[in-house]
């Protein structure tokens, strides 16, 4: 099984971080994987996206141009990548920031108010992890296991105090 995931949003939304979390989870689970960021020179506000491939086979091209799973964290990302998703694929939409509905009828769509839910947890920067929690629940290629171990790897040593809130954000998304 191969799952090609494209996470896209603004710089600062934790797009790359969410991808790293999924990549570390894949590593722990002994999968083949690749993680490839693409972003402009801006620290915040520019577009950022991240290709993650998790597979039982060796990974060919690390560039996800036809995602099985699209995580759209803002409207420009949905506009840009909606048509690229494979038929039968999944689109996760941050419905706090994206008002429109997905036009495609041949994909599964999940509207997650992740930015609002993260704000309610007093963790406005963790919409990415709320969304990732939901992805883990719905996507067969991404299990709900090894969350803690992957979080420990991806949260840097000096921010280990943030493990718990990240875990909570994932749980919040998973519970939806």
């Amino acid at each position, binding site marked *: 099984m191969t799952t090609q995931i494209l996470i896209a949003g603004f710089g600062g939304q934790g797009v790359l971080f969410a991808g790293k979390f999924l990549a570390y989870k894949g590593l722990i689970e002994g999968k083949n994987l*690749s993680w*490839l960021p693409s972003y402009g020179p801006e620290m915040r506000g520019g577009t950022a996206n991240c290709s993650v491939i998790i597979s039982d086979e060796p990974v060919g091209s690390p560039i996800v*141009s036809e995602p099985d799973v699209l995580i759209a964290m803002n409207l420009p990302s949905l506009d840009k990548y909606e048509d690229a998703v494979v038929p039968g694929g999944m689109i996760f939409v941050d419905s706090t920031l994206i008002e429109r509905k997905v036009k495609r009828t041949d994909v599964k769509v999940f509207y997650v108010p992740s930015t609002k839910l993260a704000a309610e947890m007093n963790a406005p920067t963790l919409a990415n992890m709320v969304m990732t929690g939901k992805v883990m629940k719905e996507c067969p290629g991404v299990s709900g296991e090894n969350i803690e171990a992957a979080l420990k790897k991806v949260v840097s040593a000096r921010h280990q105090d943030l493990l718990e809130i990240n875990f909570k954000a994932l749980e919040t998304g998973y519970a939806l």
Partner: protein
Amino acid sequence: MAEKVLMKGNEAIAEAAIRAGCLHYFGYPITPQTELAAYMAKRMPKIGGVFLQAESEVAAINMVYGVASTGKRVMTSSSSPGVSLKQEGISYIAGADLPALIVNVQRGGPGLGGIQPSQSDYFQATKGGGHGDYHLIVLTPSSVQEMADLTALAFDLADKYRMPAMLLADGTMGQMMEPVVLPGESHATVEKPWAVTGTEGKRKHNVVNSLYLVPDELEKTNFERFERYAYIEENEARYESYMMEDAEYCLVAFGIAARVSKNAVVALRAKGIRAGLIRPITVWPFPKKPIAEAAGKVRVFVSVELSMGQMIEDVRLSENCKKPVYLCNRAGGKIPNPGEIIACVEKIAKGGDV
């Protein structure tokens, strides 16, 4: 089996270099290779090594020249515009017959260009780059694992042949993360009697130099160097052959282009088109033999590149005009997707021009 870790390609180069006994790094930051310098900045002070951010790329490469003269393993890294600045120093290092590693994590050009991946420094890397007659051994990683493995190999080859080696990567290889098994620790095993290490009054001093004002002497150094190059061309060309056994359409691609090409080969075969891939792992020396051999079997060659067509010239020289060679390319920081390569091969298969 050793533990797999998740690393960016840039970091894998840095860690592999340290494990290969490189304790001297000189550089100047530039996207998309900065993680390499950052990793060195963090690690070198802890292991008694030297990380120095020079005032410019020109200064950095001349610091490399200095340490290389002492026989110590040494490296620098940059991206395209920065590597252009280093060319004078690289020519001096080649002229003084010194081993060193130069890493180029390529970005789109020419000029200041952009920060997205590219392979458009192929000519510069493989045909000399600076002034004078010289070559670098040029290795082209196609995975994070190879970013590590080829770094270690580059140091070994540079020592063995007393010449600079280059790791010619691209922004994708530098920025992507993949699981990697880091190589074990190794060190230079080649004796370096030419090194400038202090004589302690016990021997005649060594001179490291690239200046020969007497043409006869300078000519002699050139001929001697090219005898060595001929041996390297015969013995050190490396490549991977993928689904070439019965291939009619031979893609030739390295680095990220080879990764995308593999997807295209699999998809083309599913459509009944017998495609295969020859992936050069060294681009100098270029793997001429497998391409010459393939020329007797395949219908056409397709050079897949992130440039306006540079490697295609070496493909043509290697297959000696026996079969048509087409170009499938993107440039300026864009990467062809498998669909574009598939469309290109399908068009050729139907007898169309591309």
